């Protein structure tokens, strides 16, 4: 084994036994981590492939969720993440624009925002669930009920909108980090050139900097969607339902969700062997959804970095 060329200088010349052992051991550790990915993927694809029919993704569950499909769960997941994106992406992009373009160097506000973004990213998802319940449902929702619906529980209950807003806060850091990275990668000279030509700051940001950073924004948005589509803990108490005979049509409707459906089938079903094919099928659909989104995001980012470097 020769230490292959990296971008860094090679670590010494001729690898001796200790070197080789080290390389083999670290390579083996890498292989084990990659194997985790392959094993989960492989197991879910093999287990779920047989279930994945048109009926499965287009029909509603039947017979106490032991037969039929998962269309309502797919619909609910898409509706949820769409709503979440509408909130999280503009808010995240605006935050990143402020941090990268407007905040004066050493700004205290910017430092505070950065600290909060970092902490928000580290808050356990179940805590977001508690927060959604305590803030959106019990406080905001109930407030709306008292103010507009004579105290009738209309918005003061688990709903699509509250789950989406909870998830929007959870995914905000994903959008901010990705957008900010892209904005910072835009060369200083482009801004200077634009300003020198007489453009205002706002014109420079919207017509020069943001178009250059569109890949980063897209990446952030897609990663947020992928993250949001897979989260279960924050929506358990804020809007997801075991089973609904209808699709959600209003912001205050409850909804079914792929991840929650997996959790319910895996823990509450009296007959796991009968639901196992459905379970595998649902997991496969969820994994395909989040994975395809992730792969698209990674490809966009790699291409974009390359273009900026070129």
């Amino acid at each position, binding site marked *: 084994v020769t230490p292959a060329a990296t971008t860094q200088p090679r670590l010494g010349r001729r690898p001796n036994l200790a070197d080789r052992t080290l390389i083999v051991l670290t390579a083996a550790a890498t292989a*084990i981590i990659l194997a985790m990915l392959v094993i989960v993927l492989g197991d879910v694809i093999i287990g779920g492939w047989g279930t994945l029919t048109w009926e499965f993704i287009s029909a509603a569950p039947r017979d106490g969720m032991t037969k039929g499909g998962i269309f309502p769960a797919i619909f609910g997941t898409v509706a949820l993440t769409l709503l979440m994106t509408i909130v999280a992406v503009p808010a995240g992009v605006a935050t990143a624009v402020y941090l990268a373009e*407007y905040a004066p160097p050493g700004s205290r506000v910017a430092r505070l925002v950065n600290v909060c973004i970092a902490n928000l990213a580290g808050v356990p998802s179940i805590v977001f669930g508690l927060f959604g319940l305590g803030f959106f449902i019990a406080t905001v929702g109930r407030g709306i009920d008292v103010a507009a619906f004579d105290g009738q529980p209309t918005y003061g209950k688990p709903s699509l909108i509250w789950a989406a807003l909870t998830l929007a806060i959870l995914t905000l850091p994903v959008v901010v980090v990705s957008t900010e990275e892209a904005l910072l990668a835009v060369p200083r000279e482009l801004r200077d050139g634009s300003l020198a030509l007489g453009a205002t700051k706002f014109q420079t940001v919207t017509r020069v900097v943001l178009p250059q950073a569109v890949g980063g924004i897209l990446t952030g948005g897609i990663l947020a969607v992928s993250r949001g589509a*897979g989260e279960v803990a924050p929506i358990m108490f804020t809007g997801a339902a075991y089973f609904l005979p209808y699709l959600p049509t209003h912001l205050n409707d409850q909804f079914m969700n792929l991840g929650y459906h997996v959790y319910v089938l895996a823990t509450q079903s009296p007959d796991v062997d009968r639901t196992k094919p459905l379970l595998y099928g649902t997991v496969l659909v969820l994994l395909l959804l989040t994975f395809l989104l992730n792969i698209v995001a990674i490809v966009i980012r790699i291409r974009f970095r390359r273009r900026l470097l070129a």
Partner: protein
Amino acid sequence: MSESALRKSAGPPSLAKQSRWLERAAEALVKTVSLVSVASVILILIFVGKEALPILTSAEVHKELTPGALFAPYADAGYMWQPVSEVPKYNIIPLFIGTLKVTIVALLVAVPLSVAAAVYVCEFAPKNLRDYIKPAIELLAGIPSVVVGFFALIVLATWVQRIFGTDHRLNALVAGFGLAFAVCPVIFTVAEDALRAVPNSYRTAAVALGSTPSQTLLRVILPAAMPGIAAAVVLGFGRAIGETMIVVLASGNAALLDPNLGHSTRTVTATIAQELGEVVVGSAHYHVLFALGALLFLSTLVVNVVGERIVFGMRRRLGGAQ
């Protein structure tokens, strides 16, 4: 591309009043929106804390439960979490032990693997291979935790029982191994960043002095990157104690105070996830669950701040040494 963008952006050179107004409005808008993140952190603190506070202040809650009862053993039952029995018992020590058990298992697996993988990717891997490994590990991080939990429940549990002959099919080992799937990418990413932050001059100097690759790595690069690697472990710990869906599905969820890793166990997060749905709003049980959430929130906050501090300190030191 950049030229056409520049041409388009030039616009009319006049700075009319209207556009000056627009300038100010735009800046005010992005600045205000950026405060959403600050508001969110504060609101989480307030609204999770508000529902947890009655544990300390409410006489109503104290009829059923005093703050001390959360930590001290019951005279008749010892350390017992049994919130829905005839006489509810709210000792949260078994839940902490449960979280600790699965977290330790997860870190014992994830730390050596992830740090070694970071070393491989940063120091040994050919460039073209590295360009595939990093996105692949990102993909691993992108697997929803409910999917990992499902995999641990169906597949890992069977393997673990076959290999270790555990008493319970779902236990701390299974949950810990499952958690490792989620923790590895976190530790890998931070550790890899730390190794990358070690200036190349360190490597060239070590090599010029005649060090072999292993000497360079073990005596120069790793010591220099050690704070960052410590931070990686700290952040991985934070991720592990906060993870919910994997442990809910794989740990067996029995609140036993028991050091045996092969027995079912129940973590803080899993307790909230499983019990909050059925609890009466405003009951002592309800407030205890929020108190658990508040403790979780505060501990991850501390863990993250410590982790970030270490990374920041190391960056500055290495930057100064360059």
